[in-house]
Structure formats: structure tokens, C-alpha cells
């Protein structure tokens, strides 16, 4: 299998994730879509690493995973807090910060 297939899969996953973020209203689902986009990026990085024969992309993918894990902790905590105070996980109801 050529690396192009991996890159195509990566692009597909990224588009799926982006569509999820844009279309879904449930904060948890949007969150999962963001994770999907991150992993699409990781896949592209690892593929690039394989293509170039260096380890840079793989190392970078690890960093992205660590940051993503940390981000999940913060993001989920915020979502749980919003749910507690508003009894909803719909992202459209958390729209107070506007003009």
C-alpha cells in the first residue's frame, strides 16, 4: 500500500471530524469529532515520517497525543460543569458570550 492511501484516509478522517464539529450540537460528540481530527493529523504525521524515513513525524505524533490527552481532561471538565449548571450538553445553549 502506497503512502498516498494513508494520506487519503487521513484527509477523509479529517473531513469527517470537521463535519462532525460543524454539524453536531452535542458537546460530547463534537469533542469526539475533534479527537478524530487530531488523530487524522497524527496519521498524516506518521505517514510523512515513513515517507521521509525519519522519526520526526512519529515523535511529533506522540506530542500531539499527550497534548490531546491533557486537552480532553480540561474539555471534559468544562462540559461536565456546563451540564451541571444548565442540565444540557447542547453547545448552542452555551452562547452567552456574545455581543
Amino acid at each position, binding site marked *: 500500500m502506497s503512502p498516498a492511501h494513508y494520506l487519503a484516509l487521513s484527509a477523509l478522517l479529517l473531513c469527517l471530524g470537521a463535519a462532525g464539529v460543524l454539524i453536531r450540537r452535542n458537546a460530547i460528540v463534537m469533542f469526539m469529532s475533534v479527537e478524530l481530527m487530531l488523530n487524522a493529523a497524527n496519521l498524516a504525521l506518521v505517514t510523512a515520517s515513513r515517507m521521509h524515513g525519519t522519526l520526526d513525524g512519529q515523535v511529533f505524533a506522540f506530542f500531539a497525543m499527550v497534548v490531546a490527552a491533557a486537552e480532553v481532561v480540561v474539555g471534559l471538565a468544562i462540559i461536565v460543569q456546563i451540564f451541571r449548571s444548565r442540565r444540557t450538553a447542547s453547545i*448552542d445553549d452555551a452562547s452567552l458570550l456574545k455581543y
Partner: protein
Amino acid sequence: MSLFSPALLVGIPLVSAAVLLLLGKRSNAWGHFLGTTASIASFGVAVAAVMHLVSQPVGSREINQTVWNWFTVGNFSVDVTLSIDALSGVFILLITGVGSLIHIYSIGYMSHDENRRKFFAYLNLFIAAMLLLVLANNFLLLYVGWEGVGLASFLLIGFWQHKNSASTAANKAFILNRVGDFGLAAAVMLMFVTFGSVSFPTVFAHVGSAPGHTTTWIALALLLAACGKSAQFPLQSWLLDAMEGPTPVSALIHAATMVTAGVYLVARSNAIFDLTQTGRTAVMIVGTITLLMGAVIGIAKDDIKKALAGSTMSQIGYMMLAVGLGPVGYVWAIFHLLTHGFFKANMFLGAGSVMHGMNDDVNMRHYGALRKSMAITFGTFLIGYLAIIGVPPFAGFFSKDEIIKAAFEQSVWAGAAALLGAGITAYYMSRVMFMTFFGKARWQSGVHPHESPAVMTIPLIVLALLSAVAGYGLLHVINLEEWLTPLLHPTTGELPFNEALLLPGTLAVVAVGVVLAWFAYGSTHEIPVQAPRGNAFIRAARADLGGDAFNQEVVIGPGERLTATLVAVDEKVLDASVMGIADTFTGLGGRFRSLQTGFTRSYALVMVVGVIIVGAVAFLVRLS
């Protein structure tokens, strides 16, 4: 420190003023006594000093005292040096002598005023400043006294500051004096630049080697200063409003201090004026204009104090004319200054005494027939009147006659103006006299004229005696001309006509003035209580011959228009551009803020679109 130390002379009233002002209300009970005592003590020192001068040979009649070194900057050093010579000697006697009489008079005149202590503090300050002015041995120290006089006059003219008119008059006097002060400051700076020194001996010794135009500029700057302080045209308009102060202040300003400062300045700087014909001519023209203006204003005023103020303007005009004549006139200017100091103080205090008996009414149309109810005031005022119009043998006769003579020697026009002025003087002073003391009583209801207490009449009597004898005494007994010769170097000129004609001519002009006044205001004539409208000439004179209108049109109006223009520029150009920038961004912000919907998904969509655009651009650039 000897008895006749100049520092003591200035110090006594200055310390007294400081004590009275610092102790405040605690010194209310005895403040007027301290003030009067300080002034009299200063007079004592002045007498001792002048006696000492008299005992010295002519060449060394000078007391110099360097009190301390004021400052030294490089080669430029200024000492606080006070000196009494023949010229400042006569001034200190006039200032402290007449000043003391005015202090004594004020004890009675201000007895009902709750701020009498403060009044005496200011009087003392005035005396001290004026003494510093005439004793200073350099122009910078003179400037200190000059400003001190301006400050004290401001405080005294505005003494009844609860009256709006009084505080306005005080401001007017101060501001117009500042214009004159600018002249003095300019003169001092010019001297410093030209001679590297501001002390009298150095400047007067080197003035001959300075370029002619510099000397002329210095002289003109000094003239501007003199115009401010001595209320000469075109800075004369403050003097008439200065009548808002208590009457003793008017006497002090008009007789012993303040307005004489300008004449003193020019006489003192005679070494400068001797070298510049332009400067002397300017002084002469200013003096002539002012002497006629003041006299004309004096004709029209119904307010007794303003009529006398017009007269002061006119008499100071005589002195300026005399100093403008050069060496033939200096001595006679000082002579007239002294006699005027006596008879004008006498008449102002007399006017105060009349007002005291008439419930502070100043309108002469409400007077009349006061000679019986105020016999002493009438008698002293009569002597002052005879002195000012120049009836022999009273004081003004000698001094005014000498000035007219000197004026004719120099220029027929100046002489004719001075002679005409003498006639107008006789007219307006006779008018004051007839309206106040003669004719029928036109008193308002509830007014009971009465003679003033002795504390007020005794100074009047002393001043009346001086007004009677000072002319002959100063000229023939003391021989003022010889006394001042070492400083003022008088010369005599040639009269363009027979000298025997001058005296009868002058007396005839004076008699015409008196007779005209008698027909207009004499006993048979009914004086309306309401002022008649008068002809255009009288109305112009009532409006101070346009003095205020001149200031309004030439200075205040353009100044106000300039500030209005600057305000408009500030608001319409500077503010508008700054505000315009701010408004632009506020408007833009208002439009852009509607993008902030609060919906996370719409933000995400913007980001995605942005990323796609960036990616597309990168891709396309790569391709090309």
C-alpha cells in the same frame, strides 16, 4: 546701624505690615496705632537722614547702605543697596510725611470698618514698597519696589472686595500696571545687555557710550513703565476706577505714592533722557495729552472723587510734560510733585471728610452749601483749591507757573497746552468747589452733614498749611532748585516773549476759568439734582474720553476675537480630527461585533473556511 539708615526707613513699615498681617485678628485692638506709629517713626528716620544730608557738603550728600548681596551670577552682581541722595531725600519726606498724615486721618475715617487693622497693614506695605522704590540704587531693586507698589495698590483699591465694582477696579489697576511693568522689565533687560549692569551709577556713567537707538529704546521702555504707574495716556483708565478704594487710599495713591513713581523714574533716569531727543519728545507728548485729557474729564464728573482723580491725571500730566522738557524741567516736575502731594492729599482727605458727613454719598449734585456745616473741611479745601488753580501765594502757583514757563521755553505748543490746562483746571476745580460748598443745599433726605472728628481734621489742617506755604517755602526758603542741582543739572532757556507777560497771562487764564465756572455753577445758578444729558463733549468726558472704549476696541475686543478663533480651531480642527478617528473605530467596532454570535459552531465554521482559504492559497502558490 545709624539712626538714619535707609534700611531702617524701609524696614519699620515693612515689619509693622508683617506683624499686623501675621497676628491677624489678635492685633485688631491696636493695629491702627502700630501702623501709624510705624509710619511716623519712618518719617522720623527720613527727617534725620535728610538733616544729615543737609549737614554734609554739596558734593557728598549721599547715604549709601548695602544691606546684603542679593545675587551674583558670573560677572553680574546685584546688591540690595539703598541710597538716600538729594532726589530720594525729598521723596522719602513726602512719602512718609504725607503718608503719616493719611495714616492718622484713616484712624478716624476707617473707625467703623471691621477690617481697619488689615487696612493699616496694607497702608504700611504701600509706604514700604514706595520707599524701596525711591531708595533703590539699581533698577532691579527699583523693580521690586515698583511691583510692591502695584501689589499694595491692588490690595487697597480692592479693599472693599465685597463690592463687585471694587474688585473689578483693583483688577483693572493691576492689569494696566502690568502693561507698564513690561516696559520697566524691558528697560532693565536692555540695560543689562548693553551695560552689563543695572546699578544707577554704572548705567548713568556709561549711557553716553551706548548706541543712540539703544538709548532711545531704553527711554521709551521707561516711558511705558511710567505711563502705567503714573496713569498717563494711553494707560490712564485705571486711575478713575481706582476711586473704588477707601478715600485715604485715593489720597495716598494720588499724592504721596504710586502715581509719582513714573515721574520719579524719568527724573531719576535723567542721564538717559538727556541723550535722546526722541525719548524726551515722547514723554512731553504723553504728558501734554494726559494733562488736557485729565482736565477735560474733571469737568464732566459729578462724583467728587472722580473729579479729583481727573485732576490728578492732569497734574501728573504737568509733571510728565516737565520731565519731558529735559534739564529745564526736571526740577520743576519734582517741585510740582511735592506741592501737588500736599494740596491733592489735602483735597482728597477733604473729600473724604465731606463724604463722611454725607453718609458716603459722592455725588456732588447732592451736596451744596456745606461751607457752614463743615467749616474746617471747607477752610482746608479752599486752601487746596486755591493752591491747585495757582492763585498766589499758594503752593500750586509757584510750581505750575514754573512748568508753564519751562514749557514755553521749549515749545510754544507745549506751553500753550499747559496754559490751557491751567484754565481748565481753574474751571473744574471751581465747579467742585461751588457744587460742594456753595449754592443751595441739595441734600438727600436723612443726611445731616457734620464736621469730622479731630483725628481727621488735624491732618487736613496740617496739609492745608503745607499747601499754603510749600510753594514759597520750597522755592525761596529751602531753595529746592539748588538742592537738586547736583543730580538734575537744571538749565534755563529763553522765553519766546517778554517774561513779564507770563504771570499776568497765566493769572488771567485762571481767572477766566473761575469766572466761567461761577456763571455755570455759582450761587445764583440752580444745579439740577439729576445730571442733564449734556452735549456730546460732556458725554464723551463722562465716559473718560473713551479710555475704556479704547481698551475695549484695541485690546480686549481683538483679544477676545483671537481666543474665540483659537477655541474654534481647537474644537473644529484638533478635537474634531481626534474625535473623528475615535468615531470611525467605534462605528467599525459596532458593525463587527455582530459577528460575535456566541455560537461555537459558527466560529468553528469561520476557522474551517479560513483554513481552507489558507490551504488553497498555499496550494495555488505552490503550483504556479
